[in-house]
């Protein structure tokens, strides 16, 4: 398994900070930079770093409101108008796939968030891609060398998106299976993290990505426009998503998706997923079990 980036990813992420905070973030020791998961900025408090063992203040002067404005200016390259959709969702993706979460006073319009008027906090999440996590399950999911319809299942924070991304990459590269064209509906930009049209996280040379639109619409667009062999989507949450997957399955496309849940029984208890299981859209279900730093996978055949 290859852990792609260490402190370089951290250094790339801190470039979004204003000069003073950048210097403060770079004062962290190299070993800690390579383990840092997030930087957190809250107006009136010193900036903190989130390490696997917990959150720790970096010891500098408290963050000022104008520094959060500067952060937004740098992260958006002075183009707030171009990231308004992301801002409304509370985050924006920067070069390298790093994600900046923002919150503060929302300005509402017609019952929906129009923008964030005043920023109060921000978090910079350092993107690190772990290649090779799908290796233990790849053989089992590719009978005859081709990926079969697969559903990845786990509670939040267990590594569903990481496994999905690596499976997409492997199938797209033909690593351990027959290479196939993959189309990815990446609504929140968490899987490929497009930045100026380029995926910042590796999803393979035969992968086409649509992001920023609801999953169901993205799936239908990909189906019409890109003639995929494999259609991938992160987090099925709505009946429309299931309907779009059903349409795709009817076109002979292989499905690769994730869902929140503990196990098959948990899925069967919820109407959206129960319908999906009854329609037998997926052949395999992969459950992720995480203990401390290690993950294990259980592959179950559904049909």
């Amino acid at each position, binding site marked *: 398994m290859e852990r792609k980036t260490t402190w370089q990813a951290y250094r790339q992420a801190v470039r979004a*900070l204003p*000069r003073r905070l950048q210097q403060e973030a770079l004062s962290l020791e190299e070993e800690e930079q390579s383990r840092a998961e997030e930087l957190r900025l809250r107006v009136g408090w010193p900036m903190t770093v989130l390490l696997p063992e917990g959150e720790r203040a970096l010891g500098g002067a408290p963050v000022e409101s104008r520094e959060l404005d*500067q952060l937004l200016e*740098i992260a*958006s390259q*002075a183009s*707030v*108008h*171009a*990231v308004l959709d992301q801002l409304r969702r509370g985050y924006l993706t920067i070069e390298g796939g790093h994600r900046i979460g923002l919150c503060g006073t929302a300005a509402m319009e017609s019952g929906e968030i129009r923008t964030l008027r005043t920023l109060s906090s921000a978090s910079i999440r350092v993107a690190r891609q772990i290649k090779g996590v799908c290796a233990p399950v790849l053989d089992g999911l590719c009978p005859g060398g081709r990926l079969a319809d697969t559903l990845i299942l786990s509670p939040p924070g267990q590594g569903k998106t990481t496994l999905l991304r690596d499976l997409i990459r492997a199938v797209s590269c033909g690593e351990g299976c027959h290479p196939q064209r993959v189309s990815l509906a990446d609504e929140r930009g968490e899987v490929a993290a497009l930045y100026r049209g380029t995926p910042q996280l590796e999803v393979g040379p035969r992968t086409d990505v649509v992001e920023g639109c609801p999953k169901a619409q993205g799936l239908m667009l990909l189906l019409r426009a890109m003639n995929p062999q494999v259609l991938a989507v992160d987090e099925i949450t709505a009946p429309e998503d299931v309907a779009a997957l059903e349409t795709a399955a009817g076109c002979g496309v292989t499905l690769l998706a994730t869902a929140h849940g503990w196990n098959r029984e948990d899925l069967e208890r919820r109407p959206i997923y129960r319908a999906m299981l009854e329609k037998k859209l997926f052949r395999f279900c992969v459950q992720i079990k995480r203990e401390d730093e290690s993950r294990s996978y259980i592959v179950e055949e559904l049909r």
Partner: protein
Amino acid sequence: MVHLTGAILLAAGCGWLGFQAAEGLRRKSRSFRQLAQALALVERELELGAPPLPQLLERVAGRSAGPAKQLLEACRRGLDRLEEEDFSQLWRRQVAAMEILGAEGQAVLSPLGDVLGRYEGRAQQERTAAVRRGLEELAGRWEEERRRQGRVYQVLGLSAGAFLVILLL
């Protein structure tokens, strides 16, 4: 012979000064025109898809000329140093360095830096259009000035040259 050469040089020098003064007026009106044209392209880009500022400035600079091109290129380069200077300051600094615009032209163009990239696409478009109209008005005024004064400067230059030549000979 020396006198004659000196007189010719003096006449040519005075004539050159007159033509230069007229050319200055022409350059000024042309600069305003080029800036207005560049802002029209900015409006078009904002209407088509409101790309991020680096792309917008790059595209428009590529299709612009003169001081407009220089301004947009300098601002594009400055976007790589936003941790040192925000876009609004950068724009104002670059506009302030454009002496050819004069105080009046700079006052029209400077506030656009507070708008570009910060407002929604439609609002940016409207404000850009307003600044463009201001620049077109100034371009028209300087064009009129050139028509009125340009010929006068040229004739004055040549006459002054001729007068000095007569005096010296």
